């Protein structure tokens, strides 16, 4: 029977008490920690890139007649920050906040509401107004093209090609 087990007392003495008295003390969080995200409603254009990248579908795009709503549900978020990576306008910022418990269910949802552009030709809603502006800034594009919905654009394109090739288009009639 060696005396080595008693050395534990020495080890414990050297290390002291390591308990962090959280929540009565600040938690030990490094600078790299990933907490919840914050979406800047002014910058967000409603493109849905974050929705496509989000693994657990915490970010969802809800579309109705007049609006497109980007909904962030903290309950499903896995704090991977893929949305932060892929947002084209850097509207999503990561924070170090992890104390997210609440007793009001509505606190868990963040909603960013965007108005939708109405197609000049057929009247169905298309992309968001902000996205329209974003595309116009980035790409030289004709007014006729940007104010119509994708279905109408396709029809117009086919008509133009048909007119150029055979002189008329079935669709126009």
């Amino acid at each position, binding site marked *: *029977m*060696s005396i*080595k*087990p008693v*050395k*534990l007392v020495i*080890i*414990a003495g050297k*290390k002291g008490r*390591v308990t962090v008295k959280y929540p009565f003390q600040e938690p*030990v*969080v*490094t*600078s*790299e*920690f*990933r907490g919840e995200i914050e979406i800047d409603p002014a910058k967000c254009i409603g493109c849905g890139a974050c929705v*496509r*990248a*989000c*693994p*657990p579908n915490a970010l969802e795009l809800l579309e109705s007649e007049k609006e497109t709503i980007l909904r962030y549900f903290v309950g499903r978020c*896995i*704090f*991977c*920050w*893929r949305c932060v*990576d892929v947002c084209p306008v850097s509207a999503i910022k990561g924070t170090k906040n992890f104390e997210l418990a609440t007793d009001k269910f509505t606190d868990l949802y963040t909603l960013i509401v965007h108005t939708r552009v109405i197609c000049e030709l057929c009247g169905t809603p298309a992309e968001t107004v902000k996205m329209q502006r974003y595309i116009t800034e980035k790409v030289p594009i004709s007014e006729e093209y940007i104010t119509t919905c994708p279905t109408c654009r396709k029809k117009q394109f086919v008509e133009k090609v048909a007119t150029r090739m055979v002189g008329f288009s079935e669709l126009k009639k």
Partner: protein
Amino acid sequence: MPNPEAVTKYIELAEKNSGVIHIEGDTVHIMVPSSKLVDVADAVFNKYNCSFRVCAGIDERPINGHFSLVHLFTDDKAGYYVAIKTYLSGDNPVAPSIVSVVPAADWCEMEARDLVGIEFTGREVYKLVLPLWWPSNLHPLRKDVPYNYRPELRIESEKIGSSSEYGVIPLGPYHPTLHEPEYFELYVEGERIVDVKYRGFHVHRGIEKLAESRMSYQQINFLAERICGICGFVHSTCYALAVEKAAKLDVPERAQFIRSIVLEVERIHSHLLWLGVAFHLLGYDAGFMHVWRARERVMWLAELLTGSRKTYGINLIGGVRRDINEDKKQKALEALRELYKDFKSLVEVALSVPQVKRRLTGTGVLPREDAIKLSVEGPTARASGINKDARRDLPYAAYKYASFRVPVYSEGDNLARALVRVDETFESMSIIEQLLDKLPSGPVLLSDFEIPEGRVGVQVVEAPRGGDIHYVVTGRGAPYRWRVRAPTYANIPALRVMLRDQPLADAPITIASIDPCFSCTDRVVVVRDGKVEKIKLIPVV
């Protein structure tokens, strides 16, 4: 690097059995008719001494109207993956079972039978993954079953055994002190365990089906990370490496180094956790507390390097999302130095406690022949004298740039398994220091790439528990088939050998000594045909 001369014997084997062979990088693909499957498997496993890893059933009816079955072996000495594939009829898929020559293939064949619907001849069949009351013609991994389909079910109660000859001790799955859902039925005669029955797969989450249907390539990294709590990064790295191998992507070296470093950090964390749990099971709570105090520092280091204490979330196909700058490197080296001193003194003290030594020595012995037959993985294999480590045999990521020793013990008892893990922790610390030193400059993420359809990638990554294998067949936007086999899947059948004739008091520490990760496994095993013949099954409710 794989040894190119070793391939000749596979070419000969394929020709002799009217098969087609195709060598892609370090993977040998052999396609044989199903009548020759057993002979080929026998040659590969018994003559060429390859390790058996897993088999996967694939529903290829949308592509070519057939089912297929792939058996995955690895030639550890030569550094090759050997995939033996056979095609089965699309209406009534029947395959010969290789269990008679490869005993380790027991579970995965039954899983293919349950989930894909492939029938096996020449063996005893039973329901493994799915519950007994699941409709028998519904095979979830078939392509015509939608991922969110809910069948009409008539749920029956689970049954536990009852015997008049032996005492039956049910262990789990709703037991208040068990950490994970597992169910062992121990048949005891007095204090001696006579036989063991295991049923798991209580939390089968349908991850493979999810990945094929609802997710995209990059999203699956995060899903793979959550297959397991402790070895999550291993799964996500293995998946990323498998897809990169299939798509032949040139991942930047710096990313591979970072992956290896984080893998080793995870290994240290896992082994420290296991040591703590083992001490707790032996009643030495002081060791448990101190080892977990050391582990806390490792989790702080992981958070500094990756952004999260456990599910790191830095893997993407094409590289990693976080870099290691000079400041982080210095902090990491300092943390490792402290950990080395701390851990060394702790292990010295803890393994000298007479009760700990006495209870670990000579208990739960796994003889070498059984270990080879069952193809056990990781420290369980290395403690029984099998010199097998995927980091050295099938080098991946940046392991070829680090020199490390693989600890092998031959006693096969609980103490040997504990010592293998202790030695591996020290080796991991050394590997991290070496890799941090040699970190090359460059980008960490590949930005522009495409993943073509119809390619196959197989990858084994050495998790803290053994070799984890991912098999990916690429599709459009998401994998066509993704097969995961975690190392505990191979280790649990060995428990039956280890627990037999042991005192009941040693059952928990023996079960814990294979470092079971049941959430990784999420498979069911019914270990039967032991000495116990007449077991009456009685319903729980």
